[in-house]
């Protein structure tokens, strides 16, 4: 290089993005959401208001004699609802199809022109976003719930660690599902169809509108093992309210991990196919 501030090209030598690139992308994801304070406040208020509504509905179906429903007592149900309202923001159950829009407009080619593949770029940024959401969108509904209701606090210390792991896995599962919905834009002009399908199925079969244990047990178990939806909301919350022994909790983490591996592999495959189509047919 000639002098300190010339634009001479980088002297050739092997250079590859390292883990620092992913950390920086995650930090940018965190920062991006941190700049939208009003959006955060609006989301937190909405989630909290709906917490009251959801909990009122749950109380209505609770059995007057045993004070339980589907194996949850009053306090467990309160925690299920309020931690669930926080979890929505952490996993980001509903998001605008931004990546689909980049595919549709052709802006995705600028993602392809970076030395890191688009899926890894988005995943790193999403984990940063989730980190910010833990501090804001998770904390607020849980505090609101705890102030107004009697929440269930875990009896075993290890539950907190298991819940943290489960939340991370839930975020990865949710990211993958959203990614697949977005990647449909490689083939479809409009991803509103897949987007609506995801919103409904994840809400009904994932434990958001009501715990999957409201279904017959066989069906609930089938959903938990054979579909990814309960891995997003139901499993982390069951772990938090200590439904089942520590061994069951570990088993649930295993189910989630299985879905993470499967879905990320599927995302990668879909992205490859989508890129192939893009580079052959043009944006």
């Amino acid at each position, binding site marked *: 290089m000639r002098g300190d501030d010339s634009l001479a090209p980088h002297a050739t030598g092997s250079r590859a993005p390292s883990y620092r690139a992913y950390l920086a992308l995650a930090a940018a994801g965190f920062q991006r959401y941190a700049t939208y304070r009003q959006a955060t406040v609006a989301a937190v208020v909405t989630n909290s208001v709906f917490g009251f509504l959801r909990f009122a509905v749950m109380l209505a179906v609770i059995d007057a004699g045993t004070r339980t429903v589907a194996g949850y007592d009053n306090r467990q149900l309160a925690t299920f609802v309020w931690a669930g309202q926080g979890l929505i923001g952490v996993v980001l159950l509903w998001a605008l199809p931004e990546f689909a829009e980049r595919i549709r407009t052709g802006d995705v080619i600028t993602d392809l022109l*970076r030395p890191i593949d688009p899926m890894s770029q988005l995943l790193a940024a999403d984990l940063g976003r989730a980190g910010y959401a833990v501090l804001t969108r998770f904390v607020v509904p849980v505090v609101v719930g705890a102030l107004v209701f009697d929440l269930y606090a875990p009896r075993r210390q290890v539950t907190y660690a298991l819940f943290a792991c489960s939340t991370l896995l839930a975020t990865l599962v949710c990211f993958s599902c959203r990614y697949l919905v977005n990647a449909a834009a490689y083939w479809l002009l409009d991803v509103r169809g897949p987007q609506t399908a995801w919103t409904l199925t994840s809400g009904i079969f994932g434990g958001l509108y009501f715990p999957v244990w409201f279904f017959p047990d066989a069906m609930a178990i089938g959903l938990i093992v054979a579909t990814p939806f309960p891995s997003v909301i139901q499993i982390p919350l069951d772990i938090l309210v200590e439904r089942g022994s520590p061994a069951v909790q570990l088993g649930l983490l295993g189910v989630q991990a299985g879905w993470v591996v499967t879905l990320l592999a599927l995302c990668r495959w879909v992205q490859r196919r989508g890129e192939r189509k893009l580079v*052959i*047919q*043009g944006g």
Partner: protein
Amino acid sequence: MTVIEASGLRKEFTVRVKSGWLRRRTRIVAAVDGIALSVERGEMVGYIGPNGAGKSTTLKMLTGVLYPSAGQVRVCGLEPVPQRTRLALRIGVVFGQRSQLWWDLPLRDSFALLRHVYAVPATEHAGRLAHCRRLLDLDAFLDVPVRQLSLGQRMRGELTAALLHGPEVLFLDEPTIGLDLVSKQAVRAFLAALGAAGDTTILLTTHDLADIERLCRRLVVIDQGRIVHDGSLDELHARYGSRRRLVVDLDEPLAAPLALPGVTVESTQANGRRITYALDGTTAAGDLVSRLVEAAALRDISVLEPDIEDVVARLYTRQAAP
């Protein structure tokens, strides 16, 4: 060293056209129709042509985001599509209508992020950024989120972003499109300096001929997917018969008209004391001037470069001058 090499490069698109109710035909359009191009290290090449000529399609194939239907391409010795991520570390790309910056982040943070994404050593990054800040006047808006920047400011940011990792080749697709005059000038001056430094290869696509006139010694003109000219601006003028003009102011009219090959009098004004000559290149302007000095007292002189728009317009319509 050859940095960009393409031969027989072709890209066909399949387009569906409606042909009656519910019926569709597919038609094949050759956006790029067999081009050969070889660019040496440090060259600055203007790649021009009218809208729809195939400029962007070519650039996409060179940068690895579009797979050629036929032909060979090598950029920095790599095959663009299969080796896209490796190539990405060695090239910089600006697509005028798209942004590579993070919309919600201030420019400064976008740049910091790019340093990590491209694994650029801190001192190298700082040096390049300082250079761009100085030449592109970035300081006033370095802390503004990208979505709030004006187009001209954003484009200066885009150029910086494309250069921070020290690319060997810079691909620019319509970098001045939609810019105000001041920003256009700033971008051109910056690119001129970068080109003059001579170690970054630049391929610049544009339909704004003023970009080319300032910047590129070599001109590749593409029309309907085919290269119709590859050479200097002068060669283009010579080939299509455009003329430079020499305007001279004399103290008195000439006693007798000058007779030089390829020199014609286009007009005379002020009772013969201002003469406009047209030169077709046979006689050098310098020779004409020395003959004039011998013949009369020369007061003032100016050279009017041929209008590139005319030449290219002629080229596009395939009307070579007689």
